[in-house]
């Protein structure tokens, strides 16, 4: 039974990180109706930033978070202004999908070019190595800290979007763009803020994930796919749905890895995705 709860806790912790990655994707979709297929690759860049700030400058991943947020927000703003904004103007659906693929291919191979395709990881992260005992259930400290950081960031994001004025303009734009423009919201600025925010959230996730796992140029594909699955599962544009779906995916991954076999853990995630979408094809769990 301990094993069961251990798996549950591990899965939920991992799922919290997935939720954080997916939440950026879902707000970008909500406002711009663009699926950022390069999302996982931005996460990969963030993980490299976390990795190198530790290995080159000795900055602990937890302290590299602010720096990471800044860099990623800048990268997001740059991408929006140079690429997304222009491609949204053209109104051609396919090119809107494909352009983020181009970005994805570019980032992935850029990373391969300058950082080599090798797997890199921080062997032992100070302070958070080892595991902690929660009443007979063990969880690695790093994973626990990751879950904590992700959960706090998710809460901040949800609070920001639902309670602050800027957040409310984001919500308004997502719900009805033309009405938002009528009441005086500058939707272009909202789009810029949303895109930067969505990518900046990856800064937190990148610094957090590098504590528990490795990074390589290819890693973005898997995280991206998990994030898309979480977003689609939760229903495009739904924050709560995305968080629930992220947790579900994390738990599914750990349980299927434990009871079916580690090689099939991602297969199980997609089977769950398909089952839920056959049940609710146009909405996902909580979509609107």
């Amino acid at each position: 039974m301990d094993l069961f709860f251990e798996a549950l806790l591990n899965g939920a912790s991992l799922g919290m990180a997935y939720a954080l990655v997916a939440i950026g994707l879902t707000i970008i979709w909500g406002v711009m109706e663009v699926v950022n297929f390069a999302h996982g690759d931005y996460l990969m860049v963030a993980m490299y930033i976390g990795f190198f700030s530790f290995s080159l400058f000795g900055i602990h991943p937890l302290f590299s978070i602010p720096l990471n947020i800044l860099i990623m927000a800048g990268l997001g703003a740059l991408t929006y202004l140079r690429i997304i904004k222009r491609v949204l103007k053209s109104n051609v659906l396919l090119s809107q999908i494909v352009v983020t693929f181009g970005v994805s291919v570019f980032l992935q191979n850029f990373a391969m070019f300058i950082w080599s395709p090798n797997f890199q990881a921080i062997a032992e992260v100070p302070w958070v190595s080892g595991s902690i005992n929660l009443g007979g259930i063990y969880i690695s400290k790093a994973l626990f800290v990751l879950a904590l950081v992700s959960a706090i960031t998710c809460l901040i994001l949800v609070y920001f979007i639902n309670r602050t004025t800027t957040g409310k303009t984001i919500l308004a734009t997502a719900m009805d763009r033309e009405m938002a423009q009528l009441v005086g919201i500058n939707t272009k600025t909202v789009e810029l803020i949303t895109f930067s925010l969505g990518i900046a959230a990856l800064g937190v996730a990148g610094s957090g994930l590098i504590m528990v796992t490795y990074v390589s140029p290819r890693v973005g594909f898997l995280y991206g796919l998990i994030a898309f699955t979480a977003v689609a599962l939760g229903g495009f544009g739904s924050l709560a749905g995305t968080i629930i779906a992220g947790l579900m995916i994390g738990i599914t991954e750990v349980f299927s890895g434990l009871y079916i076999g580690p090689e099939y853990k991602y297969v199980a995630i997609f089977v769950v995705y398909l089952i839920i979408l056959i049940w609710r094809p146009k909405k996902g769990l909580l979509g609107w």
Partner: protein
Amino acid sequence: MLEISRKKHFLWIGIALTTLIIYPFIFRGSFAQHLMIMVFMYAALSLAWDLIGGHANLFSFGQAAFFGVGAYTSTMLYMRLGLTPWIGMFAGGIMAVVLGLIVGFPTSKLRGHYFAIASLALIFVMETFFTNWSFIGGAQGLSLPVVNENPWFHLQFHKSKIGYYFLMMGVMTLTIVITWLVTRSWIGFYLRAFREAPDVSESLGANNMLYRLIAIAISAFFTGMVGSLYAQYVLYIDPPSVMGIDLSIRVVLIAVFGGSGTLWGPVLGAVILVPFMELSRVWLGGFGQGLDHMLVGLLVVILCLLQPDGIIKLFAHPVERFMLGKTTKKGAVVDGSP
């Protein structure tokens, strides 16, 4: 008016065909021929993709799964039963259709991004299963035995690539003809109706699910067939190379780059993008990993910004371009009028 333009088209097609037939006898270098084989292959694959992606607007990343199933089917039939790849090729296509129907049925209600992500998941699942299935070679992949005698039975040509060249060209031509026929037939009309207004066409009594499945089946068949030929060409297949996401992405990029929803767009995309990829791989490969694909990514981004409807629009007739600009914003188009 129509008659003249149609005659003109046949003239151009005739010239193109003759050039392609003469090409391998002039350019005898193996790289020049390899280049064209890859162009044919990707042209056929992108065209097959375009039937789902461009005409039915189902953004599929699942093409690599069909490709891989085709490659594995013909290779297994050849290695275990000694069946000639001629039969294997069709068996591969049919297995791909079976897979397409198995996957297409439960996902037939999904639209837009939900479908795209389901198809991404399909690739991932298939690659995992094939990597862990030891009967078909698992992660090690399959190496086809090299046979020197009777090349047309074994479909292996080791002296020159001309055999592969014409086979691939044949499959591409077949794909073009079938795509042309399908998009001009009632199937094509139903698919475009579904693309433009899915709910309206459904309410008018169109059986969207049936036509979606037909489109997926046709697309899967040719993709699987090309997969079988590819296995014969490279003589080694493993899950990442024939089922990996890279292949699917390349196919999608080529089709959209050229101009999806049109007959010649994907072909044009392959003609431009494939040599670019292959040449940059050869020229820039020495500078370090990834540089060549970096350029491809950059090219795609630039194209999406400057010419979002695809390269083909640059060549479209001014009148057509004018009318297209008036009637539709999406990539709908010169279907049927090549």
